[in-house]
């Protein structure tokens, strides 16, 4: 059972994001971390390989400046190897180009039974890449998985819907996108962190993968303006002195909703 996890290395979401004033891309300088949304996929992959009793977890990631700290976190959790696509030409790439790059990178890791991705990244949240990867590779897919199991060669997924969930089955190989909370991601152990330092990470460029054009040239879109949104004005703030609930009742009363 060989599982590939698509992982994104993003700026720390606890920091306020900003755009590069020259080209309006999200600033991704400094240390990047493993997107929390992807830690669920890594954990899920490790559990599936463990249950299958053999195989390994490979990672694919696309990042500027050879950034690897987020990848190392996923390797420290237990993934075996990684392909990092890092290429200055990739700046400004759209979701479709990202999917083409990640699909080509995944294909370098040998036979694939399953590709796992988060439903959307925490920084760009386009939310289309997993399904685009499936189409690029000609694979079936199940998006928005809230539970994943493998039974023989069949993937069994409870897929989130507007009204509840669907039970969906699918033959392998396949692509699945997992929602946050699908499993509890493990913390890397000290041993895992040490071991991660010597795990193989292959660095390639988009050209190595044969994916062109990339970056702005391949994007089919152009940002024309970034402007501040109209602010919502803050209203009255009161400290609770034991009677603050009456303030709320009064407020609702004035709106004639009670």
């Amino acid at each position: 059972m060989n599982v590939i996890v698509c992982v994104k290395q993003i700026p720390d979401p606890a920091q306020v994001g900003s755009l590069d004033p020259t080209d309006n891309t999200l600033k991704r300088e400094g240390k990047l971390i493993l997107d929390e949304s992807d830690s669920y996929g890594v954990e899920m992959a490790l559990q599936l390989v463990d249950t299958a009793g053999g195989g390994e977890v490979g990672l694919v990631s696309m990042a500027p400046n050879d950034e690897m700290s987020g990848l190392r976190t996923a390797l420290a959790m237990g993934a075996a190897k990684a392909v990092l696509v890092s290429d200055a030409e990739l700046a400004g790439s759209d979701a479709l180009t990202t999917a083409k790059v990640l699909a080509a990178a995944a294909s370098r890791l040998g036979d694939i039974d399953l590709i796992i991705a988060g439903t959307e990244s925490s920084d760009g949240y386009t939310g289309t890449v997993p399904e685009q990867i499936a189409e690029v590779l000609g694979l079936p897919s199940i998006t928005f998985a809230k539970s994943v199991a493998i039974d023989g060669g069949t993937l069994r997924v409870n897929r989130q819907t507007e009204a509840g969930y669907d039970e969906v089955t699918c033959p392998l190989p396949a692509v699945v996108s997992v929602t946050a909370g699908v499993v509890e991601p493990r913390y890397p152990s000290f041993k895992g962190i040490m071991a991660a330092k010597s795990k193989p990470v292959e660095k390639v460029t988009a050209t190595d993968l044969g994916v062109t054009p990339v970056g702005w040239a391949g994007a089919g879109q152009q940002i024309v303006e970034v402007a501040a949104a109209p602010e919502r004005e803050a209203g009255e703030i009161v400290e609770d002195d034991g009677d603050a609930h009456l303030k709320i009742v009064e407020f609702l009363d004035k709106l004639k909703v009670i």
Partner: protein
Amino acid sequence: MALSTIWVFAQGADGAPTTATLELLTKAGTLADHVTAFVAGPADDIAAAVGEHGATKVYATGDLDGHLPGVAVAAAMQAVIDGGDTPDLVMFPQNYEGRDTMSRLSVKLDRTVLTNNTDIAVDGDSVTVTTPIFGGTQLVTTTFTGERPYLVAFRPKSFAAEPSGGAAPEVVAAPVPDLGATGGAKVQAVHVEEHSGPKLDEASIVVSGGRGLGEAGKYEMIEQLAKALKGAPGASRAIVDAGWVPYSYQVGQTGKVVKPTVYIAAGISGATQHMVGMKGSKNIVAINKDKEAPIFGVADLGIVGDVNKVLPKLIEALQRR
């Protein structure tokens, strides 16, 4: 107005078009000469209503035979395009099926996708869309530069749904072609989580709880308060991820977008991800013990206090009325 034809990804539920479908059709009617509803599934019971909202033509895939809609509808769309009917723009709702369909179609047609939008403008040949970023504090305007058709997804409630009194549209079958290996996923069973009271995204009052409640058992207060106000209970992503309540309760960027008359946020700090889903509410009440919490920046009435003290008194006061 320079667009000739817009397709709108359309879905029905319980015999009527979804609200998202009607919102997009209404907007499409202001942008193009011809609006076509591309229905994921049979169109019999929704054709009249999509016609009233501006669609003059309907493509319907018919029963999806257990396939997930994304892969099936995208293949049906490509078949129609290959047959010679190409739209200038395809509008999708930013939901599960809309997202999957546009993703598959983008690869088939080799076109970019622009998602999470809240507005669109057409000026001559240029089509620009607007996306709020950083929790809605900034608006990014982006224009398509490649070949048509352009693929774009809009967040729910970006546009108002208004009937324009159109006639019954022409309905044309757009069957799903053989999907080969890509069609391997099949729905075996459908589970519906029952809700009492109004739907979260349609309720005029929404009461949401977050981490500040302290523990899962305290969420009952949110349900009691929602019931006392004849509203719907909601939740922050934090407590959904923690497993306190099902995902269908989640308000935010990855959950439901709500715009009720009154939104009450109890024990919610106001992370970007949450604010995106509720900032459009007409009136916002926030209760949080941290007076620096970002939620107070958008609240019309902010109570700095412990939700576990304020809520029981509030529920009792409302029940006494």
